[in-house]
């Protein structure tokens, strides 16, 4: 047992860090340091820089553009992106639709889509959740009826992240309403967002941001060639995503970067003329989170090492749930503390963290602006991607036999 990174791994980390430092546009980095989501243009530009370097899709098989890195290298790469901070590869493209097309797509689908996915020539979004089907995904109702060489899709998706940016959406749709088990009778379709009959309606979140949407399908015609896998077997494709990215949900690098930012803020904010960071209580709170994060980081490393030993299982395992739970709780606790540090100015923060034309007076300190919006926005971390309640349920049922 040797829990240190090898010399090769440390060298790899330095190489990644140097590349990011040299190539990441400073305004992208600054925007992220301030706690704001990068623009679509910034995300795309950075992904293309990575793609040019051959680092667009480290997790993919080498034949499709993957890097052939070890799990540890891939972890280091992601952590360096998070810590800088730099935009991470667009998950819908690289972690979701890419691997699904690789596993289940036709040769034609692979040829056409994969290069475009890698380079974000197409921006993808995910059409899984529906108004009545959140945690209980299998109860989805959006229907696709075969009509010649097309499916005709009717229904509604919701919580669709970045549908407003998207060129394509991958959807779970019900093709056989008579199926005995609800998971059967579901198919996996790729749908061009420019298709007639698609309407995107923004959902503005309480931080004022626009990340999620409702997507309505009204008689949308989708070529049968856009079916992935077999008809009525779309659940298999969806299951592939379970536990695919086991360590990402921990968001260790992101939380490290946010803690750095938090300390910066606590150095700027003052009380009775002294920086808050000098107060023992604030320091204890910060350190308390750092301890939890260190433990989570070690847990991630154990999972990585274990995964390497056990082969790259795609089954859900307790680790994914543990990492999701702790990762979201830790991230949320950082935003709570940011809100506390921002103090009165936290209340005066702009209503829309991403609005270029914020209504906040220029007199207001920059460092306080994003505290409240981030606190509000990150409540989503314990809701989306499988609520924390669902994670606890998975652990109890699947791994403790309760």
């Amino acid at each position, binding site marked *: 047992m040797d829990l240190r990174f090898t010399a090769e791994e440390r060298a790899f980390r330095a190489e990644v860090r140097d590349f990011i430092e040299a190539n990441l546009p400073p305004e992208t980095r600054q925007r992220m340091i301030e706690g704001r989501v990068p623009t679509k243009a910034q995300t795309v530009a950075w992904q293309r820089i990575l793609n040019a370097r051959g680092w667009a899709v480290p997790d993919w098989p080498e034949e499709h553009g993957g890097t052939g890195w070890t799990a540890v290298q891939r972890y280091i790469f992601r952590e360096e992106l998070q810590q800088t901070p730099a935009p991470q590869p667009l998950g819908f493209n690289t972690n979701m639709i890419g691997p699904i097309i690789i596993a289940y797509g036709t040769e034609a689908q692979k040829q056409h889509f994969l290069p475009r996915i890698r380079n974000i020539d197409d921006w993808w979004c995910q059409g899984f959740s529906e108004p009545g089907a959140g945690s209980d995904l299998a109860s989805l109702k959006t229907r696709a009826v075969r009509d010649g060489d097309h499916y005709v899709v009717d229904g509604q998706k*919701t919580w669709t992240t970045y549908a407003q940016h998207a060129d394509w959406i991958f959807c779970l749709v019900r093709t056989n309403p008579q199926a005995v088990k609800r998971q059967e009778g579901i198919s996996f379709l790729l749908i061009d967002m420019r298709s007639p009959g698609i309407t995107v309606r923004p959902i503005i979140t309480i931080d004022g941001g626009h990340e999620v949407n409702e997507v309505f399908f009204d008689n949308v015609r989708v070529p049968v060639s856009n079916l992935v896998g077999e008809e009525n077997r779309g659940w298999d494709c969806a299951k592939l995503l379970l536990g695919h990215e086991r360590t990402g949900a921990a968001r260790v690098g992101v939380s490290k970067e946010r803690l750095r930012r938090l300390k910066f803020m606590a150095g700027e*904010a003052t*009380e009775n003329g002294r920086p808050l960071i000098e107060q023992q209580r604030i320091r204890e709170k910060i350190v308390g989170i750092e301890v939890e994060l260190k433990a989570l980081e070690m847990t991630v490393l154990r999972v990585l090492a274990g995964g390497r030993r056990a082969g790259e299982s795609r089954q859900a395992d307790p680790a994914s749930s543990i990492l999701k739970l702790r990762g979201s709780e830790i991230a949320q606790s950082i935003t709570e503390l940011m809100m506390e540090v921002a103090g009165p100015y936290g209340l*005066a923060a702009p209503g829309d963290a991403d609005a270029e034309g914020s*209504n906040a007076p220029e*007199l207001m300190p920059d460092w306080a602006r994003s505290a409240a*919006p981030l606190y509000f926005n990150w*409540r989503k971390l314990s*809701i989306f991607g499988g609520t924390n309640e669902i994670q606890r349920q998975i652990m109890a049922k699947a791994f403790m036999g309760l």
Partner: protein
Amino acid sequence: MDFDLTEEQRLLQSNLRRLLADHYGFNRRANYQAEAPGWSRAMWGRYAELGLLGLPFAEADGGFGGGPVETMLVAEALGEVLALEPWLSTVVLGGGLLRHGGDAALRQRMVPAIAAGEALLAFAQAEPQSRYSLSDITTTARRDGDGWVLEGRKSVVLHGDTADWLLVTARCAGARHDRGGIGVFLLRGDAPGVLRQGYSMVDGQRGAEITLSAARAEAVLGEAEDGLALVERVVDEAMAALAAEAVGTMSALHAMTLDYLKTRKQFGAPIGSFQVLQHRASDMMVALEQARSMAMYATMMLDEPAAARRAALSAVKVQIGRSARLIGQQAVQMHGGIGIATEYAAGHAFKRLAAIDTTFGDADHHLRALAAEVSTAA
């Protein structure tokens, strides 16, 4: 000991609740917020008609002689609907400074206009560097003939953008942190030398940054160089009102959550049938009742001597902050996605609760203040 309301108090409560039920549904509120000035002038008129705006003032000054209990009832009802109007600024903060610090002539000049809904007040207390300290004041007041001229910067002034009158703390003497040498001055909101930058705050309330450049005060409240005790008293009264408002908001949020638990279905059953969510709703109820008790305690302690009053209000702020965080976060979590969508009420209540915690010092700030006072005698 008696927790009953008088007949008049019950009437006040039910009249106000009826008014709000008729005019302050969630969609209406969204409209009020969207249009200038960010709240409803029509509602303000109705509050005046109902007698809300003159309530805590003495009858001799043109008010209705209400006490802390009446203020608590109003705050709670306004909290239930997340009301946006400048009631706290005008009646509790500005009005409190007038009541406790204004001379009879000033009161009799101002109160009728306030009661009639014709004068809006704002309390310009905080400064960019002051955080929650009431004595960290760099804005200066300099004698100039009969009057005073103010110079400085005031920050996050609640409803400072639309106020007809500003009540401004400024230093007439002493160094930046001194408890002495602080005065409370009355200025017209549109006086020369007053620059106001208004904005919408995270919870939909309005705030303003205010720069004072040789701005001339109309009057000074109380002793010009000894205003801190007045400020502390009024801030304590405001914290009591905020506690009651928070109880109203928490209570509405809890009810909203129960409603959602009973109607929203997943895995073929209402999610309220899941034991984990049931127990969490119970913990929310406990937190709500503890907060409600402390809002009453606040009301009861307002007339106690300053040291006891301040300690009590700090304790209240700690409990309100803790309860508000638990109830706010859990309500959002149990609502799932719609808990963080602006189209639904839950997220707005969550945000208002977070803002109340921060106003006049969050739970941790007041915990530290209380801890500093613990006797170390063995």
